[in-house]
């Protein structure tokens, strides 16, 4: 049965039973209602009518009684009328009752009542109408008779009522019985209905759940990923049956799908295996730069991958027609795996010739043995394939195996072979490129050497030519010259004597002739500075001050030079005598205290107890040395202190030798210090430790060299001890003995000599070059100085003009460009960066953009510190740069480099 039918019929039955019960209940209640109505209306009506009859009879009775008791015995008309009114009422009621009453007993009683009434009526009427008769018989008697009759009538009516009441009681009783019965029926039918409904429901539920459970159980059995899916047996052709049918279809579809997926997975795995192996091989061969190493690694790996038991790899050798062994796997040398195979020879050779792989499944005996420690056996499959690149043979690979090759293995081998070919090719190309690169570099350098050699040869030839020419000329002249020279020599000799005399005279004069005008110049400048008349403006006073200080510097310089030349020419005279040490020191202290104050430095002079109070030396020179050292110390010290310490040199040391008998004057400062490498340089004439500092600190650099020479004359020595950035200590050692002993002399000379050796050579060189050079290479050149600061222009111009350079200047970039255009013979430009109108960078860029000045040397004048600025200069087109303040020696070297053609 279908579930729908089942459910419809089940619920139909239950609803039917309910309707039945409802109908029964309704029928019964209607019957009861009728009965109640009957009871209430019918019986009540009957009793009411009966009572009407009784009441009316009562009335008649009372009228009669009135009559009886009336004195005259006359019947009042009024009474009669009342009586006659009662008759129809009674009759009506009796008639009505007759119609209504159906019970036999009641009917009979009613009949009796009706008769009794007739009798009573007759009596009453006779009383009223038949007076005579009544009179005859007596009224009283008639009345009595009427009373009798009335009583009979009432009794009869009461009978009737009681009968009716009895009936009513019976009817009520019946109704109650019926109610109980109805209730019972309803209860029974309800119970029946509920039981039936329950039964049906149970049946339906059980049927449906059993069928669904069956389906569910089958569905539960499904395992995903299996090849087969369970099916449901179809027993009923109901809805569940349809579900089962649909499920079965789905299950078959899943089976199908699973199958396809499985196949796909397998093929992907195969593909994956292939790809992984290939990429392993590729990774392995990636970094390889050696074909043999690569071959060995490759053949090992591929053999492992395809489980081959024997493998060989041949590559095409240098000889066209030959393959040579590159690498092997599990190779046993029995004359089979050969080192060299000619193309076309054997299977390997054939494979190389055809360019086609060869697969042999049936391997004959004695072909190759796969050997282990235990024994050897024949392989069952052999695969030989060529390694090709764009159809060209690179090598051949041979693999043997105890089992046959699977298609995947074969395809792996084939694809790997392609890869191997590419890699081998790459390695070969790489080697070639490397070799070519090195070759090109070698060639390049050789060419460079050759060109240099050629150039040298050319120059040599030219010089030789010149020399020959010169020789030719000179040999002619030589004879003449020799004669001339002879005569000249004679005169020269005289001249030398004369000039020596002149020189000393000149020096002596110099001191006077130079100093006198200079002094007046200084004094006049001083006066101008004071500006007593008040007619100078600030700038002019500034100029005067500059003249004054420059004059002083010049004076000092002249003094220094004179001193130095005096010392060098041996003209410096010593005035040795007794010197009171304290005098010198107090004088010195006085001299320098105000300097210290001015520079805000601490200054102290201390003397140790063991210093003798009197020395035997030249007071003036000693003071000069100390003064020089102190002014140097103050010059190079910005903050901190300067000390003058005088002591006995028992703790001082010079190169391991103690100065036991010396007095030492140490000047200790906390200034800029001197780099270790420059300790010796500072004593050179015209030199300072850092070439550039002279611009910052001023001075000629003569002070120390004069001091040294003076110290030497006093049989002493000056030592320096300094750490750059921390300060310096200059110490003067003087012998304490009255007359220098021989030992001391020797020592002093030795020290002096050693210093000379290291120092004087470059100095000499410098002199030499400056004589030759400045005339040669810079003279006649034209240099443009571009700077907005007149002082710089002046300083540079005077320095350059000293070297016979023509100098032009301009004050900003724009002017410079105009000047360049108007004076095309400018050889070099010195360019300041910070300028108004057009700064150095812009100016250089502009100049460089102009065709004729692409290679014009431009030297940028940069600030000292900024590395960044320099790069900017170079980027803007500067050829080189030099820091301000400019070191002249450096500038001249630089100019020579850039003016070199």
């Amino acid at each position, binding site marked *: 049965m279908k579930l729908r039918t089942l459910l419809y019929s089940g619920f139909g039955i239950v609803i039917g039973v309910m309707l039945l019960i409802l109908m029964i209940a309704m029928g019964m209640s209607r019957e009861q209602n009728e009965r109640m109505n009957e009871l209430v209306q019918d019986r009540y009506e009957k009793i009411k009518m009966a009572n009407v009859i009784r009441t009316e009879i009562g009335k008649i009775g009372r009228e009669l009684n009135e009559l009886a008791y009336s004195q005259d015995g006359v019947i009042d008309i009024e009474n009669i009328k009342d009586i006659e009114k009662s008759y129809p009422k009674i009759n009506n009621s009796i008639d009505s009752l007759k119609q209504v009453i159906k019970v036999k007993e009641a009917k009979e009683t009613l009949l009796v009542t009706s008769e009794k009434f007739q009798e009573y009526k007759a009596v009453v009427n006779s009383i009223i109408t038949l007076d005579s008769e009544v009179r005859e018989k007596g009224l009283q008697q008639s009345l009595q008779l009427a009373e009798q009759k009335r009583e009979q009538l009432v009794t009869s009516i009461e009978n009737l009522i009681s009968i009716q009441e009895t009936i009513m009681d019976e009817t009520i009783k019946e109704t109650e019985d019926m109610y109980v019965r109805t209730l019972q029926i309803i209860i029974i039918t309800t119970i029946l209905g509920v039981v039936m409904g329950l039964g049906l429901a149970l049946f339906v539920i059980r049927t449906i759940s059993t069928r669904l459970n069956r389906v569910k159980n089958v569905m539960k059995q499904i395992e995903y990923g299996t090849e087969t899916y369970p099916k449901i047996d179809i027993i009923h052709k109901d809805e569940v049956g349809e579900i089962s049918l649909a499920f079965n279809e789905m299950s078959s579809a899943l089976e199908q799908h699973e199958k396809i997926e499985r196949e796909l997975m397998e093929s992907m795995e195969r593909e994956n295996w292939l790809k992984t192996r290939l990429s392993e091989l590729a990774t392995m061969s990636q970094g390889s730069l050696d074909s043999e190493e690569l071959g060995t690694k490759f053949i090992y790996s591929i053999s492992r991958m395809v489980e081959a038991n024997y493998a060989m790899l041949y590559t095409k050798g240098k000889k066209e027609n030959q393959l040579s062994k590159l690498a092997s796997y599990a190779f046993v040398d029995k004359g089979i795996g050969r080192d060299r195979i000619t193309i076309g020879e054997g299977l390997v050779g054939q494979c190389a010739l055809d360019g086609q792989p060869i697969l042999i499944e049936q391997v004959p005996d004695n072909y190759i043995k796969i050997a282990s420690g235990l024994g050897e056996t024949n392989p069952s499959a052999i695969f030989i394939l060529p390694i090709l690149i764009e159809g060209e043979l690179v090598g051949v690979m041979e693999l043997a195996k105890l089992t046959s090759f699977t298609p995947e293995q074969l395809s792996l081998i084939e694809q790997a072979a392609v890869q191997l070919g590419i890699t081998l090719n790459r390695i070969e190309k790489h080697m070639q490129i490397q070799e070519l690169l090195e070759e090109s570099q*070698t060639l390049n350098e050789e060419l460079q050497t050759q060109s240099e050699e050629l150039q040298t040869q050319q120059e040599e030839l030219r010089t030789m030519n010149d020399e020959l020419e010169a020789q030719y000329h000179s040999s002619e002249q030589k004879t003449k010259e020799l004669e001339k020279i002879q005569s000249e020599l004679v005169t020269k000799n005289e001249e030398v004597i004369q000039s020596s005399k002149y020189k000393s005279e000149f020096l002596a004069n110099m001191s006077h002739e130079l100093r006198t005008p200079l002094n007046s110049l200084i004094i006049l400048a001083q006066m101008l500075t004071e500006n007593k008349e008040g007619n100078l403006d600030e700038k002019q006073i500034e100029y005067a001050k500059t003249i004054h200080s420059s004059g002083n510097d010049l004076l000092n310089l002249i003094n220094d030079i004179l001193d130095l030349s005096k010392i060098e020419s041996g003209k410096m005279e010593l005035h040795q005598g007794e010197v009171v040490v304290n005098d010198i020191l107090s004088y010195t202290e006085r001299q320098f205290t105000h300097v210290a104050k001015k520079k805000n430095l601490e200054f102290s002079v201390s003397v140790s107890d063991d210093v003798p109070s009197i020395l035997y030396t030249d007071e003036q020179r000693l003071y000069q040395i100390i003064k020089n050292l102190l002014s140097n110390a103050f010059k190079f010290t910005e903050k901190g202190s300067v000390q003058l310490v005088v002591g006995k040199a028992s703790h001082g040391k010079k190169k391991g030798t103690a100065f036991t008998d010396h007095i030492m004057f140490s000047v200790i400062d906390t200034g800029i210090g001197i780099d270790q490498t420059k300790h010796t340089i500072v004593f050179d004439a015209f030199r300072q430790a850092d070439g550039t500092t002279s611009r910052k600190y001023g001075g000629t650099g003569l002070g120390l060299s004069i001091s040294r020479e003076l110290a030497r004359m006093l049989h002493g020595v000056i030592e320096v001890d300094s750490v750059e950035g921390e300060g310096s200590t200059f110490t003067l050692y003087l012998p304490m003995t009255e007359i220098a002993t021989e030992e001391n002399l020797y020592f002093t000379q030795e020290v002096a000599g050693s210093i000379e050796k290291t120092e004087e050579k470059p100095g000499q060189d410098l002199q030499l070059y400056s004589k030759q050079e400045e005339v040669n290479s810079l003279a006649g050149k034209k240099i443009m100085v571009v700077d907005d600061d007149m002082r710089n222009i002046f300083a540079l111009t005077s320095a350059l003009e000293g070297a016979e350079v023509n100098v032009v200047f301009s004050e900003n970039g724009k002017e410079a460009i105009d000047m360049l255009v108007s004076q095309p013979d400018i050889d070099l430009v010195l360019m300041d960066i910070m300028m108004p109108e057009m700064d150095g960078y812009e100016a250089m860029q502009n100049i460089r953009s102009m065709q004729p000045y692409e290679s014009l040397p431009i030297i940028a004048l940069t600030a000292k510190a900024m590395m960044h600025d320099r790069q900017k200069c170079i980027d803007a087109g500067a050829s080189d740069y030099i820091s301000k303040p400019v070191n002249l020696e450096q500038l001249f070297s630089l100019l020579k480099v850039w003016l070199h053609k």
Partner: protein
Amino acid sequence: MEQLYQPVETNECSKLEKLEIELLLEGIYRHYGLDFRNYNFSSVRRRIWHRIQLEKLTSVTSLLDRVLREPQMMDKLFSDLSINVTEMFRDPDFFKAFRMRVAPVLKEVPIIRIWHAGCSTGEEAYSMAILLHEEGLLKKAKIYATDMNERVIMKAKLGRFPLNKMQGYTSNYVASGGKQAFSEYYKVVSEEVEFHPFLRENIIFAQHNLVTDSSFNEFHVIICRNVMIYFDRDLQDRVHHLMFESLAPSGFLGLGNRESISYTKFNQFYQEIDSNEKIYQKMKL
């Protein structure tokens, strides 16, 4: 006459010619102790023919004859074979890379030893000194500059270089990241510039032959640029071995920009610091 000269441009080298060259090199080795046998053959061949042409000779053997009997001819040939191409701050990027990548590491080393193998006339050694000076390392550094050619060593010791090269050197210096003005380091002396003597205070110039001599110290830096390009592969390997032995752990090796360590056995022992400028660092083992 001209036709008799072997055309150098042709790449083909007959067996006979090869034999002659080998005999010449063998003879030089046996007689003078100078070993050019493992030099890059094509380069040696070109240099030999260069000399043959200059001397107006006709064959390698005739040169052999002269070389064996005339020491002056040997000197000439020796100069031909030892190519001395160099310049200051050659390949400025190398020096820039050195400044950026190597100098900071050297700051940690108490005493720095640098070997300039094949220094030629010393330009690069002076460049290195300038670089170290600017990095504040010169005082604690010793630069051993060696070359097999004693004559160039003598020249290097002077620290004088031709004036006409200076413009180029200046731009090299700037390109190498120089921090000062280049002119602070030299002064012009007639047609040459003389570099400041403080630069050579820490340079030791010495004759050393990479082919025949062994290691003489342990170095923190070895610079051997464009030297091995004249050697064949065997000799290159030997020299690499020598340098590897002479290099302190974590020491640096600088090669020429056409050279590479990739093709040698020592590749795995070095770490690339700058692949373009061929600076390598020896790995700690």
